């Protein structure tokens, strides 16, 4: 028997290590047609902010080799709408539900979190200090230790359940930021958010995105994400959630061998909306083949 359970700490235990990545899985319910959402360890819903946001102008997407750029810019109807309209539709799932929280100021992050603190059906929040697609806040918080510490500490004060902090790869040393998040009270860190990139339409001589630059995701970024997960797993004592370009179970296993306790699937859902369930099954097959009975054997199981 293979036990797929993973413990991310502070009460967040998943039936299996597979989560979805924020902004790529809507509110989960959009996938009801494709998969049984209860098969997932959990899902991270869309980036949520204190106030309604229209996001960036279009075009917001450009395809790149083995990847895509997006410049959505946190379009969402605000946390109040989420709590009133969306939250009730999510309580029926057994899978854990994690809300991705973003803001332009520390006060925004804190106020947004306060709306979520009391909700039984929300198992954790993922603090997005790494969104490259907004003018203020977002990634700015995730690229210096000082600002990361401030925002994490402020949110920690108002949130008692599991606090996951999502890190930006657009930094010289990601382990530094990870340690700051840990020191300020994060229960886990998730990485990576998108890498800042750009694409140009040579015919029209114009950027392909309305915002000129956007966030790169998909298999193209996998080697970078895996390296960062490995570095961070070796430098903090809290669990690490790995993501960036995971397309199949083998990719997920790479992240877990490198030290991730759980993984998130993002862009892969666009190409195969059933991929998450396939990855759950594939991890189980891998563990059987390698005679691992618990995810503990897998996590950080890289042989050097």
């Amino acid at each position, binding site marked *: 028997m293979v036990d797929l359970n993973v413990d991310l700490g502070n009460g967040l235990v998943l039936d299996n290590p597979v989560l979805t990545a924020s902004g*790529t*899985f809507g509110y989960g319910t959009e996938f009801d047609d494709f998969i049984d959402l209860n098969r997932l360890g959990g899902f991270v819903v869309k980036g949520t902010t204190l106030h309604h946001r229209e*996001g960036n102008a279009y075009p*917001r997407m450009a395809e790149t080799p083995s990847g895509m750029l*997006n410049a959505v810019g946190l379009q969402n109807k605000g946390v109040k709408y989420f709590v009133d309209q969306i939250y009730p539709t999510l309580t029926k799932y057994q899978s854990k539900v994690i809300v991705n929280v973003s803001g332009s100021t520390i006060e925004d992050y804190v106020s947004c979190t306060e709306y979520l603190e009391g909700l039984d059906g929300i198992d954790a929040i993922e603090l997005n200090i790494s969104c490259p697609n907004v003018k203020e806040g977002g990634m700015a918080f995730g690229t210096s230790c000082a600002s990361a510490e401030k925002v994490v500490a402020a949110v920690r004060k108002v949130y008692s359940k599991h606090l996951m902090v999502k890190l930006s790869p657009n930094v010289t040393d990601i382990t530094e930021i990870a340690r700051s998040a840990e020191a300020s009270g994060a229960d886990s860190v998730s990485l990576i958010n998108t890498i800042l990139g750009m694409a140009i339409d040579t015919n029209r001589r114009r950027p392909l995105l309305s915002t000129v630059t956007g966030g790169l995701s998909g298999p193209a970024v996998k080697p970078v994400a895996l390296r960062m997960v490995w570095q961070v797993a070796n430098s903090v004592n809290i669990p690490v959630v790995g993501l960036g370009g995971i397309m199949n179970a083998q990719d997920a296993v790479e992240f877990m061998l490198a030290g991730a306790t759980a993984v998130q699937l993002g862009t892969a859902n*666009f*190409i*195969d909306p059933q991929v998450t369930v396939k990855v759950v099954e594939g991890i189980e097959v891998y563990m059987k083949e390698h005679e691992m009975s618990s995810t503990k054997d897998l996590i950080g199981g890289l042989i050097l």
Partner: protein
Amino acid sequence: MNKTVQRLVVEKKEIVNKDNFILSLKSPVPLVEVQAGQFLSINVEKSKDVFLRRPFSIHDVNYGNNTLDVLIKSVGPGSAALKEVEVGDLVDTIFPLGNSFTMPNKGEKVLLVGGGVGIAPMLYLAKVLQPITSDINILLGSRKGEDQILLDRYAEVGNVLTTTEDGMVGEKGYVTDHSFMKERLQDVGRIYCCGPEPMMKSIAKLAEEKQVYCEVSLENMMGCGFGVCLCCVTDTHEGHKCVCSDGPIFNIADLKW
């Protein structure tokens, strides 16, 4: 009308002209109901230069044979690779996606306008309209005469009108220049339009002037095709809406054009 991921079998490939071809895709299980204006997305598996799925309108549906047809114009790596598929190959699809055209009142005069490969959804739409009205006018516009394709097929389902910019087929000029627009537009109950954005915008302007109800089928860069990535938005009076799930069919009154 649940969305499904399905591997469909290429039952037929019809090369229409240099750029355009039709794939008939057969479902091994009974076809779910598909509405006019909806689309499917294809995962182009054999091209290194394609990462995301590609959206294509449903051109025709045959429930008896469980086939869906798509009319594709070869414009880049994805559509070019699809031109290379062979009868018997499997194609990874998701469908039905998107909303659909709304239906007219019984017997109402309707005008279907297609520009370029934007004619694709108009065939199935006309077929769906036939039980509702017999006054179906299909205006097909293209730049050159040689791009006027499948006219006989459209003639079976409605009254075909054509314009070409080079004047080689039908009336010379843009679709908006067609005599129908001056002479009979006021009698039309609904316009359905799909084509290049400038064309749709000028049709929309005419429709507004003449106060004719008008729906357009929009395109946009799509990440997912089923409403989760928010990449494909367009501006409406109610803010950003997704072309893939709130659309692709929009009432022009809702668009910020």
